[in-house]
């Protein structure tokens, strides 16, 4: 959507390897110095936003460290992953969808739904080894239905996934109106166990799962045909079709992936809260979308990275952490503060990546 104002600048980067045929002599381009390379990284339409996001994240973290006692510690950093493992997984799925130019509003409700399914099935004595696969299959199927709606019936992603959101949320209520505890030993074990990293630092198994998902996603997006087709669809679906790429399959699959990730995120979320609750994760889709966009992915599709989205999640997480360390904000100032931090961040990101007009 921002293409509006970026179009004139992004399109007209002077290219380097210039010239046409043997006659063309390249006046610039060869032998770039490291400084220029760093500058190029900052201003490149491809890597700029991610680089800037990373730098800003580090900056916020350092500033927080100066401002709050006990902030600048390894565990506070690791807790960003511990607390947001599910959001990372969500953002990964969302990145796939947004890269194709779509959007998935159903993820929050699906997180709640998979929590409800897990809690209710575990309560009736099912084994986690069965429950988790069932959840992942069900949420993937929901993603598949959304994908088919989007591709076959040309329903706008916003609406198709909004319907899915209603459906998932509604199913939560149908399963149970009240929250259900999870007492299954495996789940409890996964919830409370910590993986020590030495020096008093530790993470949870969920973090490992989330990081594996991230690594897989990076590989899929950058190392496979499917992944490149995802980018291709975002760059121009029509062109992709004319180039003979499997647009239909990819577009549907992207929603399946998002559904799967939502399901998995739901499972991680239940590790975190050990319960199913129909009202949980309301508005989480906005967090996921915000993380992806903050991470430098264009909502119109085609540009962005999974790692950027991970950074986006960390940024949201660090904002949250700052809030608790601040500890004195009333409810409304909390909201205003979140908005303000988001704003500062986005503007800095914009200013730093802005190219000469």
């Amino acid at each position, binding site marked *: *959507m921002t293409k509006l104002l970026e179009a004139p600048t992004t399109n007209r980067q002077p290219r380097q390897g210039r010239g046409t045929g043997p006659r063309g002599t390249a006046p610039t381009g060869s032998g770039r110095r490291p400084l220029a390379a760093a500058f190029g990284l900052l201003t490149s339409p491809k890597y700029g936003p991610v680089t800037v996001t990373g730098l800003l994240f580090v900056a916020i973290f350092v500033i927080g460290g100066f401002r709050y006692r006990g902030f600048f510690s390894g565990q506070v950093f690791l807790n960003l992953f511990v607390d947001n493992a599910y959001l990372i997984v969500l953002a990964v799925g969302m990145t796939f969808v947004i890269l194709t130019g779509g959007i998935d509003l159903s993820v929050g409700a699906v997180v709640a739904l998979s929590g409800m399914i897990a809690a209710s099935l575990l309560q009736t004595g099912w084994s986690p080894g069965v429950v988790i696969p069932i959840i992942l299959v069900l949420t993937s199927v929901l993603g598949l239905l959304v994908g088919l709606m989007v591709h076959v019936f040309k329903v706008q992603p*916003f609406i198709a996934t909004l319907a899915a959101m209603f459906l998932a949320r509604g199913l939560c*209520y*149908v399963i149970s*109106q009240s929250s259900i505890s999870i007492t299954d030993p495996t789940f409890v074990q996964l919830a409370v166990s910590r993986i020590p990293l030495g020096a008093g630092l530790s993470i949870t198994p969920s973090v490992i799962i989330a990081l594996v998902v991230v690594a897989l996603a990076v590989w899929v997006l950058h190392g496979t045909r499917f992944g490149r087709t995802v980018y291709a669809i975002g760059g121009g679906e029509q062109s992709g079709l004319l180039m003979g790429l499997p647009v239909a399959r990819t577009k549907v699959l992207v929603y399946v992936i998002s559904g799967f990730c939502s399901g998995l995120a739901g499972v991680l979320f239940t590790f975190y809260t050990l319960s199913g609750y129909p009202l949980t994760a309301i508005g989480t889709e906005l967090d996921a979308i915000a993380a992806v966009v903050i991470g430098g992915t*264009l909502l119109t599709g085609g540009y962005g990275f999974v790692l950027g989205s991970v950074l986006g999640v960390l940024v949201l997480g660090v904002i949250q952490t700052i809030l608790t360390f601040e500890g004195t904000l009333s409810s409304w100032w909390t909201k205003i503060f979140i908005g303000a931090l988001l704003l500062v961040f*986005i*503007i800095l990101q914009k200013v730093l990546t802005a190219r000469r007009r």
Partner: protein
Amino acid sequence: MASNRLFWPVVMLLVLFAINLVAFPGFFEITVRDGQLFGSLIDILRNGAPTLIIAVGMTLVIATRGIDLSVGAVAAISGAVACSIILGSPAPGSLATVAVAITVALLISLVLGVWNGFLVAALGIQPIIATLILMTAGRGVAMLITEGQILTVNSPPFKFLGSGFWFGIPVAVIIAAVVFGLAALITRRTALGMFIESVGINPEASRQAGVRARGLLFAVYTFCALCAAIAGLILTANTAAADANNTGLFIELDAILAVVIGGTSLAGGRYSLLGTLVGALVIQTLVTTVYTVGIPPIATMVFKAAVVTIVCLLQSPTTAEALSGFRRRLAVRSGKGVAAS
């Protein structure tokens, strides 16, 4: 084209009406009580008015390829501002107080709109994030104004906005009609509509053709915020209380849904205000249907999902193709029948 796109939403509206009629035979009855129109249909119009007003602004924003998530927060702010002014004044019941309150609320919304416009048009931030900022912070501001309390005002002129009647017609409906009419008039009778569409379809081409995209975006976001503020005033006046937490909560989703059901694409470009009107009516009727039919609250969401899905699938070009193929086959068959006889 537009009329075609509206076919299924209108059908859906009629189907919802029919369902209501079955559940409650008096659904279509409109009586005059104390010189005021009274009936389910009137309720639908009146309760749908705020959504429609916001959806009108949203339509224009979406046509420029944008989106505005902050409308709910803006509605809450305007309600809070108006109520706190009325509460703070020595004469809450006087027309002047209310006029001042409304004016200030609307002026503030203009500022908020310009703010959104600034982020989107001048800084080039993606609209969803730009307006997400105000969506989050704005509700905080509204709560700051009310200090988290529900401000109840006892001011008949203010209440009139939300639940009053004028010539027997609910004031809210009249306001919605005026906003709708003005928007239609201004965009369709001037070149504004064409510019909005053109910027939404191909921003760079529009820029090169001399369309002032930036100013346009400012205008559109400001207008949308103004619509949100008007809706916020109506919502607040409806219960004569400013509830910063809940006024306009999730109304952005309803508004966007109305716009899309009305056939305007979220990818920007061509828009249909008439479609938005139908969309808003469908959504409000849906809510009423849930109540009249007595769908239990736990099933409400599933029901909504079903209706939205059905409308979308019916509207789909794929369905249209399949249907026309079917019709053609029918025609061929009946044609043969005629030939044979």
